[in-house]
């Protein structure tokens, strides 16, 4: 018997045209030269291609900001919403249509500032979505205002004498939220690591939160230091994200068990270098949509009408013949 590979079966028997990267491309991205967003988009397109996800089954939801333009450049069902509110929309999509693949893309201001309430709560709901926060520590689209993750002292248009506050540490904050199930961090200048991180996130069933550090070439060209000043650390584990040996020569590598929440919290509290890798991973938590749908199975029309009839009976006044 002639055994077919899945590709052969798809192409020859089902006459399904193999996808190419082009099938996931929409408009030409309008991001600045040198912006890390280009790399994120490419990784995402490659990931969807490799996972054989049909574009029509992808919903990409974003807020407002440079990074939130991503749905315009991905050939999928994109929803470019309002500032800070991508997560509620994503939750709604996934809750209504658990069959769809939902990707949420936000910037640091969108997620950690105006969207903070939704950020904390959506993590706890643990809907099975991929969440990418492209953190460049600045509001770039609105032309340079300090964001919660801007380093203290950042000179911006609303802080011309330097920003006043210590920057927010979103990692330690997230690791304090009950029911959260996946937290990883990477950077756009670590393309292999970023790709591996996104794949790991994709494979996780639950809310996969990935913070991707990036440096805005226009407004924050000196962030993270210059040239060889740049230091970083990696988390390593058999369940973690593979680290390129070439990079480890200049970086601190720490063994970290991502199943260990307390260890993760300790790691997250380290100010700098902010660790790259899989901080926390709990594959055993149920997702919100599976819990909700398990109690609300869809009905056939006849059964629906019958139950509706029963329900209305409860409110129907059965009139009393022979009243006064």
């Amino acid at each position, binding site marked *: 018997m002639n055994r077919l590979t899945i590709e052969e079966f798809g192409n020859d028997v089902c006459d399904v045209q193999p996808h190419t990267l082009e099938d996931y491309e929409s408009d030409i991205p309008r991001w600045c030269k040198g912006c890390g967003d280009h790399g994120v988009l490419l990784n995402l397109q490659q990931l969807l291609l490799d996972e054989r996800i049909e574009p029509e089954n992808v*919903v990409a939801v974003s807020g407002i900001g440079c990074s939130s333009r991503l749905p315009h450049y991905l050939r999928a069902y994109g929803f470019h919403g309002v500032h800070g509110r991508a997560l509620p929309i994503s939750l709604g999509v996934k809750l209504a249509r658990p069959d769809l693949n939902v990707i949420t893309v936000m910037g640091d201001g969108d997620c950690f500032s105006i969207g903070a309430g939704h950020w904390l709560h959506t993590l706890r709901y643990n809907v099975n979505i991929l969440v990418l926060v492209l953190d460049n520590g600045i509001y770039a689209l609105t032309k340079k205002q300090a964001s919660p993750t801007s380093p203290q002292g950042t000179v911006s248009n609303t802080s011309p004498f330097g920003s006043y506050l210590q920057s927010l540490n979103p990692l330690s904050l997230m690791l304090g939220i009950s029911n959260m199930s996946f937290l990883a961090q990477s950077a756009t200048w670590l393309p292999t690591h970023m790709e591996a991180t996104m794949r790991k996130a994709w494979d996780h069933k639950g809310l996969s939160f990935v913070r991707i550090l990036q440096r805005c070439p226009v407004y924050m060209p000196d962030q993270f230091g210059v040239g060889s000043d740049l230091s970083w650390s990696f988390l390593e584990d058999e369940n973690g994200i593979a680290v390129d040996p070439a990079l480890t020569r200049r970086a601190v590598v720490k063994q970290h068990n991502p199943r260990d929440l307390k260890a993760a919290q300790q790691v997250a509290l380290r100010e700098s270098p902010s660790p790259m890798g899989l901080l926390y991973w709990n594959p055993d938590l149920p997702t919100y949509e599976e819990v909700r749908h398990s109690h609300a199975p869809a009905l056939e029309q006849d059964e629906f009408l019958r139950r509706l009839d029963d329900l209305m009976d409860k409110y129907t006044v059965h009139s009393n013949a022979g009243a006064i």
Partner: protein
Amino acid sequence: MSEIRKIRLAEHIVEIVSDSGEGAQKAANTFAEACAMMGNGLWTVEVIPSEIQPPPHTTGATSGNRIRLADHAVTNAGDLAHLVLAFNEMSLLSRIEADALAEDVIVVIDNKWANDPELSIQKSYAEVLDDVRARGGTVIEIPMEEETLKLIEDPRRGKNMFAVGLLAFIYARDIEVFDRIITKTFRTKSEGVRQQNIELLRRGFEYAEKHIDFQFEITPQPSEVSQMVMNGNTAIALGSIAAGFKLCSMYPITPATSASHILSEIFENFGGIVHQAEDEIAAIGAALGGYYSGVPSLTITSGPGMALKTEFQGLAVMTETPMVIVDVQRGGPSTGLPTKIEQSDLLHALYGAPGDAPKIVISPSTIEECFHVMTTARKLAEEFRIPVIVLSDANLATGQQLFPRPEITVDSLAPPMDQNPVAPGSLPFDWDETTGLSQRTIPGQPGGMSVTTGLNHSKDGKVKYDYESNQHSHRMRSRKLATLKHALKPPPLFGDPNAGLLLVGWGSTRGAIEEAVERAMAQGIPVASMNIQFLSPLPPGLKEIFERFQKVMTVELNYSDEWGDPLIDEETRRYSQLATVLRSQTLVDVDCFSRVPARPFMPKEIHEVIVRECGRLALPGQPSADVSSSTTQA
């Protein structure tokens, strides 16, 4: 008592009030249900304490219900109560202070307070009752607690059923009916509890039989058609299920939440989900995400929540995503009066959201309409790719009314979600140049991929910044309202179409307005009224209708400045909300009578307005009185 006077009445308004937690509402619901089962017309309104655990034996602790029962259909809560059954004198006093009782009210009250160990209570009991008598009321003191204690240990668990028994006699109710109701109401309790309650009720009935020498007969009119009884929030909940919604995303807010409570209990049984979000904005966001993905979704809120949801409403308009928002209006502004009715969100519903964001706004005026409006809202939201705001209010939310049971068939249900491949070359915003309507694609449909954005865009969904594109997209979204308006009919007139005065209302004031009109007509005063259900778009023909009358005025429960107040004249007067809209749309000098009394209008209040205004109108051959700048306005 040997001779029982039987007094036939067309209607009576009964209030049952007690301290919060003593069961007045259960008593009232039991009594009301019996009246409904026997075939009386019915309208009930809750009396709600403002705190969860107010101090007992105070006016702030009052909880209960008003029941208006009649030998005809009832459309509103009526004027002043004719009979009050009070568990203590402070509950009674709270109703006196609310100006809810007739001067010649009949008070049936538990007399245990007459000999209460607390002298201050004895004193207040005596004083309140003396006051009632002095003003022409009748007081019937009944040892309710004493009698209840003969059967059970804790009077709080049975006095209310005894009280129902008293009323059952006074209103000549069929006692067997109550047995059936109690069995149903206490179905989750033990047989012993059920029997006890049935017995308590019978004892109340027998006590009244022995000690009360009159009965009221209010002839029921049993209906051929099956009737349902429920409050407006329940109607919205059930109507949402029947309409085919599958996701209700909400955040708790008074007085909307009970609709979500009911859905929370039953929706899953129909494949639906109630999602409680972290805030109002997340609630509408999830509903938007749900509907964008093809699943009919709604969100339910009140005034303050509407304010928070405004940006998302604009996003729904711009992205042409169907959306249904139910706003159960309450007293404003700001936190206002959470449990009290007001019709205060009309302008917000119409114009809230940045830029030009046309939406559909509908207001049900009866509890029956609360049920059916949900199907209308869903269909319009989907057909027009637009948010539909349903304006209900605290009165409809908690009031109960009888209405014919709807027939739900396969045709009423939502169509299955379209997942067919989209024809090549299809555009996500393929506007029909005449109607502004377009076909939306739903995630999952092959070939329909596109980006949906809140930025200005052209037919293909791509961002555009130029004049022509922006003008065109506005034109298309606005056109939808004109398209819908063409499908609407002018609202019918109630009363005399040849009268000089036309009253215009919206929402739940309809019943009181129409009753006032009926009263005036019966006195020989011609007057007409109109109820507007579609607030956006308005129904057609209004200007033409208004111009047939000498005077048009709205009657609304929201704020307007009153003629005659200092500094208030034609320059400064702020009109009520519907009047503002009608004036701008029709250019007719529509006046308004509006108040924010934290309760529904009584028909008599509107009747007073009719009499006053008609008195000022020109009779044939005489010049009209100058209405607008009069300083003798009442």
